[in-house]
């Protein structure tokens, strides 16, 4: 209820601001809604949104699985940590734009280049989070699993994974928000479709209603995915913790 109220307040402020600044710079909510409906009924909105979501899904999955595996290895094996650390620092500090531009130059303006560039941007933070999680693993529980001769997979699933779950959730959440931002840049620079591409077009035409229509739809989708997917996963991962009074 409070959330709805807060959202309504946002609309009201927007409307007043639009009235004050004028429709050319900030179109009113109904004007944007109109563009949304037009784009949706022509199918273009779903096409671009779908293209962007597919890229996000692929890049996110790639970066999360690879990053988690590398992070776990670096947390467990000292040698891997020593070898990987300089690379990690380099990747962490490499600006997203550099990665995207280089990927397009080296691999051409292809889908693979775009997805790889997005994934590489997310990879180092996934590694760092998972490495911290692995370092924080409870040794005494490892010993327990070893004394009771639990098979490797069972021990990983029931002893290790639940301890990593909060880190995976944190990594997914921060990673997703990073990927949402970077995917638009990658699309703007070198893809013929997607929300980023549409925003680029709208920018060139100074078509603010179109720009807002696409960005707001995109933001809404992000919000839905956050509440329906990421938050329930976090809640599930933490369900055994005694609730705060």
């Amino acid at each position, binding site marked *: 209820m409070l959330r709805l109220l807060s959202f309504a307040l946002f609309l009201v402020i927007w409307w007043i601001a639009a009235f004050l600044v004028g429709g050319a710079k900030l179109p009113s909510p109904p004007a944007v809604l109109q563009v949304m409906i037009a784009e949706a009924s022509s199918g273009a909105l779903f096409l671009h949104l779908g293209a962007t979501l597919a890229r996000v899904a692929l890049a996110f999955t790639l970066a999360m699985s690879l990053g988690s595996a590398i992070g776990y290895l670096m947390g467990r094996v000292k040698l891997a940590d020593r070898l990987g650390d300089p690379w990690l620092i380099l990747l962490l500090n490499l600006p997203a734009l550099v990665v995207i531009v280089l990927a397009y130059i080296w691999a051409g303006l292809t889908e693979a280049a775009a997805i790889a560039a997005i994934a590489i941007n997310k990879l180092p933070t996934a590694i760092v989070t998972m490495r911290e999680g692995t370092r924080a693993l409870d040794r005494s529980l490892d010993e327990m699993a070893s004394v*009771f001769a639990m098979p490797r997979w*069972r021990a990983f699933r029931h002893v290790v994974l639940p301890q990593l779950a909060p880190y995976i959730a944190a990594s997914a959440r921060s990673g997703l928000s990073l990927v949402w931002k970077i995917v638009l840049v990658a699309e703007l620079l070198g893809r013929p479709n997607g929300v980023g591409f549409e925003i680029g077009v709208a920018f060139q035409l100074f078509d603010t209603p179109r720009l807002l229509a696409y960005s707001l739809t995109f933001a809404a989708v992000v919000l839905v995915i956050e509440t329906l997917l990421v938050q329930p996963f976090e809640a599930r991962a933490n369900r*055994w913790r005694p609730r705060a009074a």
Partner: protein
Amino acid sequence: MRLEVDITGKTFRSAAGGTHEVLAPVKFALQSGEVGVLIGPSGCGKSTMLRIILGLDHDFAGHIARPPEARIGMVFQEPRLLPWRSVEQNVRLAAPGVTDGKLSELFRILELDAHRSHYPGELSLGLARRVALARAFAVEPDILVLDEPLASLDDALAGRLRDEIATLVASRPVMTLLVTHSLDDAVRLGDRLFFLSPRPARIVAEVPIGIPRDTRGETEIAAIKASLAQRTQGDRIERDVS
């Protein structure tokens, strides 16, 4: 089945670079059906010895002969339950072969029936200890290791749990290794007592107890304790173990 422990030494390198001797040469053996008790002052190296016997620590000099197929059930000093799994899941994960009947019986003996679906975070220390006991017995161990299972429990509860341990140990042929610093627990549960010196630990006395556990009444227990006190310069051991 027989467990032979022959540790010739264990040193520990401190962060400052010095070496500390944790264990002096320690040698003993245990048979199936026997309850061996390692009894010694806090910090004498009992836990280190256990870790070596359990194969968790390979950095020592000597040899441990333990049947490789022996199933181990262990009660750690702190319960070491998985906080994200329920009581029943905790037991079943360690003992996937346990039957429903056997599990119900264990939960009944240890009075855990009402707590099957609780998470360890919702349990008191006494209850968590009992879950750890249930887990150790559910695997139907060949070797049962109990590391101070009754520490920091009140006397009444400790007494009841001790009786339960005695019942469970008697119910199947198992080799038990109990670590404690309580002479009372040692005399009530043990068949053979190994008195350890302060760090670096070595065995200062090995005392078999002839009277079978189930016929030991309060008078016998008091007599054993008195003779122990006499035999091993009483006050020194009493001081070490209390």
